């Protein structure tokens, strides 16, 4: 067994016992909740007369339903307002800290956790949201869970889980100019498939991840779930330690020194073994764009949409379904595809470095006529930092709308939605049918820089040729 990899070390440390089913009862060090998947969980606790025994290990924020224009309460959407009232009441009643709209720490749950120093290496983390895998960027083991498991964690600080296998994904070499973390993870998913990671935790290792900033690592780990892996992580190193230092919830002074030593000791050693290993050369990764209805259906921006018969027979029906929905033809170049909407934001790419990259592209240009372009910071902290740097002025001058923090058009549970058959160049994580709020709306996933370029040209553009 692969006893020396980080995943197994952290798993063993948090194992409470083996359940009658044979699954592990796993202690959860950090539980993050939001307004969408928690109300029913609190009700389950009420129905059974249960309390939250470790309320200081759960943090709540609001993100999915938050309007990014007017945030005056009550919200215009009665249902959204009810959800707000529910999380406020539940957090009050069960003693959970809520980073609400009037708290400048509010934002998308997977932006807030790392930003506040809540997320640290060696933790087990759970949240009723599939993009919880984001926190693996720190060398924590982070799982997306459903509402029943949210109730489990609230009431016991543990959950029942079978131990996954661990696959190491090595990307060695150097990324070419214009290739971002988003392209790396889209490329990995394209190679391994949307269900390639089922049953696995992914360890991302090699030159490319070592050279990445924490925000880039978060982008990669965030989309692990899009490749079927419930959990993906990167070993902690000095970059990790430096990022955490000084954050509000991070350990201080001597405790920080002890913490850093422990964090670094968790990394998979040179003798670590894995259940599987895949190697991808950095040089083959291009700026990547999706053309279909799942995140594996992507191509390099200079490539054409592949021919149906280039796919294995079992995949061809899905490819035809995607082409029909997108109204694309096989062998059609993706570059030049006209867009109607550009969305920069989300837990994948709504951090300050993402906005900086997009602003660099937008500076001195104008959004193409007829294109609606939105920039939605991932948190109030990101928003404040961007405004301090004047990024909002660059965006506004270029014709982008500058919005308040939230999930916005990534999943469109709020007023930000596509209309009809619109095509959206999006820095988010899912191009599923109907994902962005119009049942027939279409999504092209790409890096924030590529979204900004597409907004300006009015069409999918190769960032390497953008001027």
């Amino acid at each position: 067994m692969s006893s020396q990899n980080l995943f197994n070390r952290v798993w063993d440390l948090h194992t409470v016992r083996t359940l009658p089913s044979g699954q592990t009862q796993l202690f959860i060090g950090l539980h993050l909740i939001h307004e969408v998947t928690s109300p029913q969980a609190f009700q389950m606790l009420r129905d059974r007369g249960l309390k939250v025994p470790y309320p200081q290990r759960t943090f709540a924020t609001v993100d999915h339903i938050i309007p990014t224009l007017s945030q005056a309460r009550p919200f215009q959407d009665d249902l959204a307002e009810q959800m707000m009232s529910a999380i406020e009441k539940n957090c009050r009643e069960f003693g959970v800290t809520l980073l609400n709209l009037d708290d400048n720490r509010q934002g998308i749950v997977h932006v807030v956790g790392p930003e506040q120093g809540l997320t640290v290496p060696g933790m087990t983390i759970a949240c009723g949201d599939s993009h919880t895998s984001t926190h693996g960027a720190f060398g924590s083991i982070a799982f997306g869970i459903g509402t029943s498991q949210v109730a489990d964690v609230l009431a016991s600080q543990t959950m029942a889980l079978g131990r996954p296998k661990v696959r190491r994904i090595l990307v060695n070499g150097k990324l070419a100019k214009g290739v971002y973390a988003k392209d790396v993870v889209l490329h990995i998913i394209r190679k391994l498939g949307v269900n390639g990671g089922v049953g696995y935790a992914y360890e991302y290792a090699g030159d490319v991840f070592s050279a990445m900033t924490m925000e880039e690592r978060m982008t990669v780990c965030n989309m692990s779930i899009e490749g079927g892996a419930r959990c993906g992580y990167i070993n902690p190193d000095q970059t990790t330690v430096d990022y955490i230092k000084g954050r509000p919830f991070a350990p201080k002074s001597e405790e920080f020194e002890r913490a850093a030593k422990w964090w670094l000791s968790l990394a998979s050693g040179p003798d670590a073994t894995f259940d599987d290993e895949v190697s991808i050369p950095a040089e083959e990764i291009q700026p990547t764009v999706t053309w279909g209805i799942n995140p594996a259906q992507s191509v390099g921006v200079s490539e054409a949409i592949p021919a149906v018969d280039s796919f294995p027979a079992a995949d061809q029906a899905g490819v035809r379904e995607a082409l029909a929905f997108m109204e694309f033809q096989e062998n059609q170049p993706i570059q030049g595809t006209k867009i109607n909407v550009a969305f920069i934001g989300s837990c994948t790419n709504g951090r300050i470095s993402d906005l900086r990259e997009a602003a660099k592209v937008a500076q001195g240009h104008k959004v193409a006529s007829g294109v609606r372009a939105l920039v939605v910071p991932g948190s109030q902290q990101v928003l404040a930092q961007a405004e301090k740097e004047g990024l909002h002025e660059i965006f506004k001058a270029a014709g982008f709308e500058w919005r308040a923090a939230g999930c916005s058009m990534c999943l469109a549970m709020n007023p930000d939605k596509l209309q009809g058959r619109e095509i959206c160049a999006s820095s988010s994580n899912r191009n599923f049918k109907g994902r962005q709020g119009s049942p027939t709306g279409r999504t092209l996933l790409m890096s924030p820089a590529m979204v900004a370029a597409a907004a300006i040209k009015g069409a999918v553009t190769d960032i390497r040729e953008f001027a």
Partner: protein
Amino acid sequence: MPAQIASVTGTGIPLLLDDIDTDRIIPARYLRCVTFEGLGEHAFEDDRKQDPSHPFDNPKFQGASVLVAGRNFGCGSSREHAPQALIRWGIKAIVGESFAEIFFGNCTSNGVPLVTASAADLKQLAAAIEANPKAAVTVDLLQQQVRVGTVTVPCQMQAGAKQALVSGNWDFLGQLVDAAAEVKQTSGNIPYLNGYKV
């Protein structure tokens, strides 16, 4: 203790598409709720509007409780609203080529067995259901078989989840809460909960 679930029997409904994500099962606009009530009628709502021949609208499959699905069913969002919508529509078991893990866990927590079968066997099951939608389909966890009429195919289920369902231990909440003392003991050994004094 909840019911022991060793088998599920009911009529079937085939939906042999791959990579059906939870946004398609229940569009996000229906997640604006504080209970799971009423989700059943919205299951696959957008797919149904765009495909008049969608099985969930086909009169011959109404009342079905065994869904025959494709590969990677339930991928994407962790929303438990997806299995809740299917359950409230009437689904009690799903046979598929493979399932996304969070969806799988959500179904297990709600006493819905998800078993896997080969693509060829799934086609055979779907054909048998199409030919005779009134026929009883049995998902038998102990025999590891799915049976409809004269068709019997082998199926598999992840050992832990199967054991939990068959033994009536799929309500994890009670079991997890019962171990409070052991939980406390484990937390005492976790560095970040103890000032990093390793």
